[in-house]
C-alpha cells in the first residue's frame, strides 16, 4: 500500500526525471574549485536569513515606540530569542562577505565571459540587493547607532545628481529619519527585497544550470568533472556545515549588541559610521575636498563611485575574449586594486 502510494507520488512529481537529471549533471574540477562553494554558502546564508527573519517577525513591531522594546524583549525574554536575533544579524553580515568573495572569485576565474554575461549581471544586482538588505535591516532595532547611520546613509543617497533629493525623500518617507522611515525600511526589508531577491536568485540559478560552471580549461584540453550528486552536493554540504559552525560561534561568543534606544532629538554621538561594507565609500567621501572644481566634492565622489560600479558591472562587455583565454593583466590588476582599496579604506574608515 505504502509502496503504491510512493510510486504514485514519484510518478506525478516526475521524480525519475529529477533522478535522471542528477545522475547526468557534472561539475568541472580544477585547482580553483574551492571558490565555487562561496555561491552555495551565500545561498545557505540567505536561507538562514529568511528562516530567522520569519521567527523575528513573530515578535517584532516596526514603530518608533515599540521597535527597540520588541527587539529587547526578543533577546531577553523569548526562549533562544537572543540566538535567533544574533544569527540573523551575523548571517546578514557573513552573507555580504560571502557574496563579495563569490563576486571576486568569478571575476578572477573569468567566469563572467560569454555566454555567462547575464549570470554576472544578475549576480551583481543580487549583491546590490544584499547590501540593501543590510542597509534597511540596520535601522529596524531603532537604536542610536542605527538611527544616525541611517541619517548619514540617506544623506549620501541624497547626493546623487538630479534624483538625489527625490531618492532621499523616498527612502526617508519625508525630510527626516522618522517613524515613517522605519515603516518604509521594514516594508523593503521583509517584502520588497525578499520578493525581488527570490525571483532574481531563481533566474541566476537557472542561468547557472543552463550554461554550467566555468571550467577554466584551455580549448582542446579535456575537462575533468565530478558528478553533481552526490559528490559535489556532499562537498557543498561540508562547506555549509563549516559556515554554520562559524555563524554559531560568532552568534554565541559575540551576541549582536542592541545599544541604546534612538532619540531623534539628541545630537549625534561621536564616531558614527555605517556598516563595514559601506565604510570604504564613506571614508573616501570624507577625504574628498568640499569643492572639486565647480562641483560639490561629495557629489563628485558619488558620481565617480556610480561610474566605477557601472564599469565593473559591464566587465563582460569590455572583456570579449573567449572563455578559455587567459585574463588580461590589466583586468587582474584592476581586480587586485579594487580589493586592496576596499580593505585599506574600510580599515581606515573604521579606525579614524
Amino acid at each position, binding site marked *: 500500500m505504502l509502496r503504491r502510494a510512493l510510486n504514485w507520488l514519484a510518478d506525478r512529481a516526475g521524480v525519475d526525471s529529477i533522478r535522471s537529471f542528477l545522475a547526468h549533471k557534472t561539475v568541472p574540477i580544477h585547482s580553483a574549485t574551492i571558490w565555487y562553494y562561496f555561491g552555495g554558502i551565500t545561498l545557505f546564508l540567505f536561507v538562514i536569513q529568511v528562516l530567522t527573519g520569519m521567527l523575528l517577525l513573530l515578535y517584532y513591531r516596526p514603530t518608533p515606540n515599540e521597535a527597540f522594546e520588541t527587539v529587547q524583549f526578543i533577546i*531577553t525574554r523569548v526562549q533562544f530569542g537572543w*540566538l535567533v536575533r544574533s544569527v540573523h544579524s551575523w548571517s546578514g553580515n557573513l552573507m555580504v562577505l560571502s557574496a563579495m568573495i563569490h563576486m571576486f572569485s568569478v571575476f578572477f576565474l573569468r567566469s563572467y565571459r560569454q555566454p555567462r554575461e547575464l549570470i554576472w549581471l544578475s549576480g551583481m544586482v543580487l549583491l546590490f540587493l544584499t547590501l540593501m538588505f543590510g542597509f534597511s535591516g540596520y535601522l529596524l532595532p531603532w537604536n542610536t547607532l542605527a538611527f544616525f547611520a541611517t541619517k548619514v546613509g540617506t544623506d549620501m543617497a541624497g547626493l546623487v545628481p538630479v534624483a538625489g533629493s527625490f531618492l532621499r525623500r523616498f527612502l526617508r518617507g519625508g525630510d527626516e529619519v522618522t517613524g515613517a522611515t522605519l515603516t518604509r525600511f521594514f516594508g523593503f526589508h521583509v517584502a520588497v527585497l525578499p520578493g525581488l531577491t527570490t525571483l532574481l536568485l531563481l533566474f541566476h540559478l537557472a542561468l547557472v544550470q543552463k550554461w554550467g560552471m566555468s571550467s577554466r580549461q584551455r580549448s582542446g584540453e579535456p575537462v575533468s568533472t*565530478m558528478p553533481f550528486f552526490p*559528490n559535489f552536493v*556532499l562537498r557543498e554540504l561540508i562547506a555549509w556545515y563549516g559556515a554554520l559552525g562559524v555563524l554559531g560561534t560568532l552568534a*554565541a*561568543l559575540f*551576541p549582536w549588541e542592541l545599544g541604546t534606544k534612538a532619540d531623534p532629538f539628541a545630537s549625534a554621538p561621536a564616531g558614527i559610521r555605517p556598516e563595514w561594507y559601506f565604510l570604504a565609500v564613506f571614508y573616501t567621501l570624507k577625504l574628498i575636498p568640499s569643492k572639486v572644481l565647480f562641483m560639490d566634492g561629495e557629489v563628485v565622489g558619488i558620481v565617480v563611485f556610480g561610474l566605477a560600479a557601472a564599469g565593473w558591472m559591464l566587465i563582460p562587455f569590455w572583456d570579449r575574449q573567449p572563455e578559455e583565454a587567459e585574463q588580461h593583466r590589466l583586468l587582474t590588476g584592476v581586480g587586485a586594486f579594487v580589493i586592496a582599496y576596499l580593505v585599506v579604506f574600510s580599515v581606515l574608515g573604521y579606525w579614524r
Partner: protein
Amino acid sequence: MKLRWMAPIFVMALGLPAQTAKNSCVECHAALEGDLARPAELFANDIHGKNGFSCVACHGGDPSSDDPEVAMSRGRGFLGKIDRRSVPARCARCHSDANLIHRFKPQQRVDQLAQYQTSVHGQRLAAGDVKVANCIDCHSVHDIREVSDPLSPVYPLRLPETCARCHADAAHMQGYRIPTDQFEKYRKSVHWEALAQRGDLSAPNCATCHGNHGAAPPGVASVAMVCGSCHVVFENLFVKSPHKKAFDNMGLAGCVVCHSNHDVEKPTLALVGVQPGAVCLNCHAKGDKGYEAAMQMRSRLEQLAASLGRSDDILKMAESSGMEVSEARLGLGTANESLVKAEVDLHSFDPAMVDGAVAKGLEVAQSSYRAGQKALEERDYRRKGLALSLVTIVVTMAGLWLAVRELDNRRKKSS
C-alpha cells in the same frame, strides 16, 4: 529730583545724537599715539557706543568742534579724566535712572550704586581709599561690554580672574589684612571645575557668594544661608541637625567648617567617620555620641558603596561578554541614587535617616548583582551549547568528508 524730568533731554544732548553727529573726540584721539589713542580704539567695542552714546556722555565737552580749546573747554562742561572717587556717581547718573536704562534693557536693575555703597569697596572709597575697586576696575573702561559677552571681564567664566587681579596681588592688598590665596584655592574647588572645565555658567563664582556690586564677606551667621541658596536640601537638613546649635554656640560658621570655603573639594566618604583625615574627628573624640554616630554612618555608606562596586563589576563582565543586562544596569542607577540620597541625608547627622536610604540602595544593588550572576550563568550555558554544537558539526563534516573520499575512490576504480 527737580531735574529728573529733564533726563531724556539731557541724554539726547549728550549721547544719542552722537550716533550720527560729528565726534571730534574720536577723530582727534584716533590720530594721536599711545595712551591717548587707546580710548578711541577701544570705544568701537563699547556697549555705550553701540547704543549711541559718545565720549561726551561721561567726559563732557563739545564734540562738534574741531578746535581742542573749544571741544575740551570747561565752559562746555569738559571734565577730563574722571576722578576715581567720582566714577560710581558718574556711572550712576544713567544707571540709577530707571526711565533711561529701561529704554535699552527693560529688565536691567538700577540699584548698583546703592548696593556699591553698602559694599566694602564702596565704604572704603567713601572713606577716601582710592585703591579699592570701583565700576571701571571690574567692567573695564572705554570697551565696556555686556555681562553676557564672553569678552567682558565680568562674564561668569572671567569674573574670578577679574577679582583676582586685585585680591591675588599681595602688593596691592598690603595693608588690608586679608589673605591673597582665594583665587588659588578657588581653582582647586568643585565650583571652579564646574565653571571652567564643564563650562557651567551657573556654577558659583566669587559674586555668587559675596555679591557683586554689594560685595562683602559673608559673616559666620550667614555662611549656611550663602551655601543654602544653591544647596537648599543640605541647608534644610543642617539647620534641623544637632550641629546647628552646637556650631552657633561655638561661633563656627556652618558648611565651611567641614567643606572649607574657597577650595571646596568634591566630598568623598573619607570626610566622614573616625579614621585619620575624617573631619568629624576635629570635634568628636572616642566615647562621645557623635563619634559613635560618625562611625556608624561611615560604615553603612561604605557598605552600600562596596555593594554598588561589586554589582557594577559583575554587570561589566556580563556586558563585555555581550550579555544584555540593561534592566539590571537601570536598577543599579537607582541604587546609585540611593547612595547620593544617603550622602545628602548625612547632613542630618542622624544615623537612622542615613540607614533608611542605605537599606533601599542595598536591596536594589543586590538585585542587580543577582541579575549579573544570572547573565554570566546564561553566558556559560551558551558557551557549553556552542561547544556541543561545534563538536557535532565537526563530526558531521568529518563523516561527510569520509563519504566524499569513499565516493571519489569508487569513481576512480570504476573509471
